[in-house]
């Protein structure tokens, strides 16, 4: 059955490549246009409160999270339904991550961390829907996420340990002469953390989507041979599905690692 579908799809792609090839095969590639923020209800001006496609797709993310975690677990089954198992899986996955990476006393931060994870992972996956807008491809979004994590963790560290939190930068196991140098490096690496969090997530998502668009542009330009880039898009799309999850995972686990530093700053 699956094989049959595969051959039908293959035939469809080949035929459509021949029939629907553009008459003027021009190379019109605008990979970055998909990231443009546009107001939903017309107009050119974008104020901070204007409902834009960002608003729309963030709303969809909220709906998806709500559907998965609230509707999915509505039955409270001892034997879970499919949606409920996914909800439980997400819960257990993040809970275990927080507990294992950041320690048992980090469990009180679990709701914040799963909020981050659920937002990023749903936004990433929603961004993979053709024609959609990917909120996590914007530095404004990932930057704010990173800054929130950075500020929250720094404040937590100082609240819990006071000035001793600065011991995080003073590597007491190193020779005394090296410590100031190491301290400088540690401080720099500490402040680079939010930047790397921000750039890694947005960069990965943006690059993947842009590459998909570039291949799509090739498909328009190649005429009858357009099935080649379409296969490439299919393969790359699979990779993007992987990246969508892995980047959410990486962001979350790094947050847990940083949180562990804030809770137990001694080296």
């Amino acid at each position: 059955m699956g094989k049959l579908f595969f051959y039908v799809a293959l035939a469809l792609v080949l035929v459509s490549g021949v029939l629907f090839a553009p008459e003027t095969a021009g190379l019109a590639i605008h990979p970055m246009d998909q990231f443009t923020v546009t107001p939903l209800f017309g107009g050119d001006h974008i104020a901070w409160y204007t409902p834009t496609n960002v608003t729309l797709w963030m709303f969809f993310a909220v709906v998806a999270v709500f559907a998965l975690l609230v509707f999915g677990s509505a039955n409270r089954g001892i034997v879970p339904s499919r949606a409920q198992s996914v909800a439980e899986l997400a819960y257990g996955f993040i809970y275990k991550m927080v507990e294992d990476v950041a320690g048992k006393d980090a469990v009180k931060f679990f709701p914040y961390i799963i909020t981050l994870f659920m937002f990023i992972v749903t936004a990433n996956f929603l961004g993979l829907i053709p024609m959609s807008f990917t909120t996590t491809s914007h530095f404004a979004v990932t930057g704010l996420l990173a800054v929130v994590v950075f500020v929250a963790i720094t404040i937590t560290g100082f609240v819990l340990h006071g000035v001793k939190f600065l011991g995080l930068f003073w590597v007491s196991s190193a020779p005394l002469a090296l410590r100031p140098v190491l301290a400088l490096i540690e401080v720099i690496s500490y402040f680079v953390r939010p930047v790397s969090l921000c750039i890694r997530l947005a960069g990965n998502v943006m690059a993947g989507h842009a590459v998909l668009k570039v291949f799509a542009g090739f498909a328009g330009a190649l005429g009858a041979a357009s099935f080649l880039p379409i296969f490439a898009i299919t393969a790359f799309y699979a990779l993007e599905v992987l990246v969508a999850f892995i980047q959410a995972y990486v962001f979350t686990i790094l947050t847990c690692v940083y949180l562990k530093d804030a809770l137990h700053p001694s080296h």
Partner: protein
Amino acid sequence: MATTTHDAGHGAADAAHGSSGMPQLDFSTYGNQIFWLLVTLVVIYLILSRVALPRIAGILNERQGTITNDLAAAEDLKAKAVEAENAYNKALADARSEAQRIVAETRAEIQVGVDEAIAKADAEIAAKAEESEKAIAEIRATALDNVKIVASDTASALVAALGGKDDTDTIAAAVAKRTEV
């Protein structure tokens, strides 16, 4: 994917009105994105912390409780089964020993009866034997007397026939002498 290419073409027309290069670096949209992101995060946080997380934690706890209870119940039932088996074995052993006891008792009872009967039979046999001996002795005695009578009669007849005098005392003495055993 056909729609995606269409979108690209459509975007090309739009791209004319500015925002060349990366839309990510268009700082005029930052305020908008940050505002809506904050709203989204707060909403997701409220949904998760108020509804979803407590509910899922409850489900997981409940399941753990159910599993623990079921395991305990299974352990209980297993213990009961072992107990029942032991009781069964004990009942079997009891019945067996009871049967053996009854067999031994019955055998002893029968033995007593048999012994009694044997003793009685022996006594009867002994009595009969004694009686018979007595009868035999009597018969022998009478036989001896008859012999004496016949002998004395014969002797007196012989004596008379020979012309002798019938001397009863002499004959009796002679008979007694001869018949002495």
